[in-house]
């Protein structure tokens, strides 16, 4: 497994652990609305962490690992893939925290921050698309008996 996939997937596992824990508190709040009603404040962050931080990030990390490699067995455009990792985690964590604080605080620059973090998530997806595009190609299997350079 390449190093960047390790980073993507381990980050996804952390998002899973935190996001599911938030979900557990929210589910418990359904049973005890009086004592645990505050847990509903976690709902937007719970969704951010599990959709963007867990599912999307795991899919990107796996794709970086298993998509066909370029000639010379390189994955190519590594800077774009690392940009995607940084932007996705910055965007998801930033959005989750902003949504949490927006529920707790009466006022703040929440609109600007949410716009920035949404843009970061878009940059992450665009950067990974830029990285992956050359790798999305059919595998050509040479006929039996054809000499190969592998």
């Amino acid at each position, binding site marked *: *497994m*390449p*190093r960047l*996939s*390790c980073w993507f*997937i*381990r980050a996804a*596992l*952390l998002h*899973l*652990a935190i996001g*599911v*824990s938030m*979900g*557990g*508190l929210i*589910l*418990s709040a*359904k*049973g*005890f*609305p009086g004592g645990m009603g505050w847990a509903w404040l976690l709902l937007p962050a719970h969704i951010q962490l*599990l959709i963007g931080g867990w*599912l999307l990030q*795991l899919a990107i990390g796996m794709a970086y690992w298993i998509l066909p490699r370029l000639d010379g067995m390189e994955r190519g455009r590594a800077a774009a893939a690392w940009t995607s990792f940084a932007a996705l985690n910055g965007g998801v964590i930033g959005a989750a925290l902003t949504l949490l604080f927006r529920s707790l605080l009466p006022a703040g620059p929440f609109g600007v921050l949410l716009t920035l973090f949404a843009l970061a998530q878009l940059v992450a997806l665009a950067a990974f698309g830029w990285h992956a595009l050359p790798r999305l190609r059919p595998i050509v299997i040479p006929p039996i008996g054809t000499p190969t350079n592998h």
Partner: protein
Amino acid sequence: MPTITRTFIKSGLAYLLIGSALSAIWLLQLAWPIHPLLGAIQPTGLHMIVVGWLTQLIFGIAIWMFPPWSKAQPRGPSRPTWACYALLNAGLLIRLIAEPLNAYRPSAALGWLLAASAVLQVGAAWIFVALMWSRVRGKSGGR
């Protein structure tokens, strides 16, 4: 494909059916109100699909496909892996029953069942994270 993976995937397929059926029934309830209980099943249907099917499918495939734990135990220790499966599915089944009933007619007993469901599902996720953490590594990296 190892037994634990087949078990995760087959259970996931069952939850896909259950979640899709609940979501369809909820839509029908919107169009033709049949019973108020059916109006409370939307979050349960959503979680049966996202956790019961999608997450469970990911768990099963990851246990199968991720780099091996060790030569002797390529899928990792058996007991925690099966505990992860048991906790997740026990939590989901309790949720399937308790969540709609609690939304329709809340009670303390149902509240405790929901809390138990939450603990079981969170426990399963933490076990999965602990099991997979050391398997996420490069070819040359050790645990």
